[in-house]
């Protein structure tokens, strides 16, 4: 760097600076890339984020509610059906979006279009690539949940003052299911339709048996355990506490939060390990 001339004003900074910045901000750099890709199908995301809540809240909260509320509201702790399903739908939508974002795009990164391997040749580390992907998806979950919550409010289904906290709960629930799934996606080397199986044998049952459309108690004990292990149930119960002051022992509320955080942390840990192992092979 001895004799730079005016023509050489356009110079990259030195590798030392590049490495130092990448060490510090690498995850953000990759998050930026994922968000740029998402922008490419931004219209679909917006349509989905708005259309999904409106359709579901209308069908379940207004249509189905006429059948359900006619039978008396005591089954739902004294609130209307739309108030009961609102937080559940919000949490479920977040979990489903997380499922989409942490399956096919991860496979794409490692196998189909190998999009993780480009940044891997740059100063970014596998762990930063994983972290960047997660940050971008978290942002999407937050925004989607915020829009969803706005719809819930419009349907008059969030009477409590703490309702906004369901946005955070839904995002957390999405991560607590999505991050362990991401670790699994990163371990798949051959596509044999695993994601269709995850969707139909894990996500759908969790959606349908997590106290989403009716209290878990109305199911026989034989299937109630599905709810207990389900991030959707923990998220939904927690969401109901914030959304309409659903009564439950405080210890249970804490337990729901702990389970969600624990699953997310476990998934994060496994994902980091899986990414480092697979890319460094």
């Amino acid at each position: 760097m001895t004799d730079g001339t005016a023509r050489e004003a356009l110079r990259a900074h030195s590798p030392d600076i590049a490495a130092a910045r990448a060490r510090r901000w690498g995850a953000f750099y990759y998050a930026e890339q994922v968000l740029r890709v998402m922008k490419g199908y931004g219209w679909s995301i917006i349509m989905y984020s708005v259309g999904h809540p409106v359709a579901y809240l209308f069908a379940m909260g207004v249509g189905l509610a006429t059948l359900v509320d006619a039978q008396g509201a005591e089954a739902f702790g004294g609130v209307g059906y739309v108030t009961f399903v609102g937080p559940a739908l919000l949490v479920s939508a977040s979990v489903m979006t997380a499922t989409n974002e942490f399956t096919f795009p991860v496979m794409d990164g490692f196998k189909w279009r190998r999009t993780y391997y480009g940044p891997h040749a740059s100063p970014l580390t596998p762990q930063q690539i994983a972290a960047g992907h997660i940050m971008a998806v978290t942002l999407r979950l937050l925004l989607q949940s915020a829009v969803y919550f706005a719809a819930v409010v419009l349907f008059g289904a969030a009477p409590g003052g703490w309702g906004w906290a369901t946005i955070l709960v839904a995002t957390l629930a999405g991560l607590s299911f999505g991050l362990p799934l991401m670790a699994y996606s990163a371990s798949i080397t051959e596509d044999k339709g695993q994601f269709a199986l995850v969707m139909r044998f894990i996500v759908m049952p969790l959606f349908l048996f997590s106290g989403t459309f009716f209290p878990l108690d109305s199911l026989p004990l034989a299937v109630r355990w599905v709810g207990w292990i389900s991030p959707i149930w923990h998220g939904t119960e927690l969401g109901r506490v914030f959304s309409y002051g659903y009564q439950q022992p405080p210890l249970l509320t804490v337990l729901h939060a702990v389970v969600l955080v624990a699953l997310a942390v476990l998934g994060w840990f496994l994902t980091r390990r899986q990414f480092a192992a697979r890319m460094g092979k």
Partner: protein
Amino acid sequence: MEVPFHLPAGSTSLRRVHNKATMSSGATGAVQPADEPPTEARPTVITAENLTKTYGDVAAVDGISFSVPAGESFGLLGPNGAGKSTTMKMIGGVTRRTSGALHIMGLDPDSHGPEVRAHLGVVPQQDNLDEELRVRDNLLVYGRYFGLPMSYLKPKADELLEFAQLTDKAKSKVDALSGGMKRRLTIARSLINEPRILLLDEPTTGLDPQARHILWDRLFRLKEQGVTLILTTHYMDEAEQLCDRLIVVDKGRIMAEGSPAQLIREHSTREVVELRFGSERNTTIASELQGIGERLEVLPDRVLIYAHDGESALEQVASRGLRPLTSLVRRSSLEDVFLRLTGRSLVD
């Protein structure tokens, strides 16, 4: 110490110009341009000692050692599966070595991956461009991984697109590009951080002849600007065109090392006569060719006679009353070197 350089063609500030003489003169450091420091004075950018990588019981790279001075164009020549790509991945800090020592710019890639990769531009064997982004966005996004600011990246991306002859494709989708264009875009992407060392893994495999020549021209310009090129190839013509020095690798080991001319001189004769007698007769006729030239090589489809003077060897064949279907006299190539060293062809 660092030599400033520009990417676009036609830059006048080039300091290090390799003239053709250096490339083909053979002995390293024999002929140097006047302003060129002697080879010994050039700093070493890569050293590998006894580098080994095993997958389970299989040794993909089996104890190879080499060092590369700055500005050199260094090649790894060998057939598929020789361990070239694995070596490249270890240099690129994306695969951990099993044993041995490896330093890039004095840094160990296993412990300083990000720092090492910050020095490098990498063109992987398989393109991994982001097909969901447009051509120019691929460059911008990649530059961000090096922490480069947009104020630098935007003009730089345009400059590199021009260099890669992709300016009119800037807004195209990546999957609309031809194979050669994708390859050039990958090279442009690898240059976004102005690396002093460029790793190219099979840069022209799968491209048609015209696309290959365009690529070679671009790589040659980088070489003229003093960028250290490390490339793997299984094409001997590519190695001869681009490499100052190369190692011939087979089954994870180094078989020979030197400049293309040096290797040919040491391991082959000046000329080769290729004779085809028809697939059934090549083997039987070989015995009748004994004594012509210095060495005889019988392949399934042809017989090769290695001789200093090809024309006179061919005359001897005729004088023995043998009538080949076709005959050809040519200069020895790296293909012959490889055949001699391993008993196998490079491309089967």
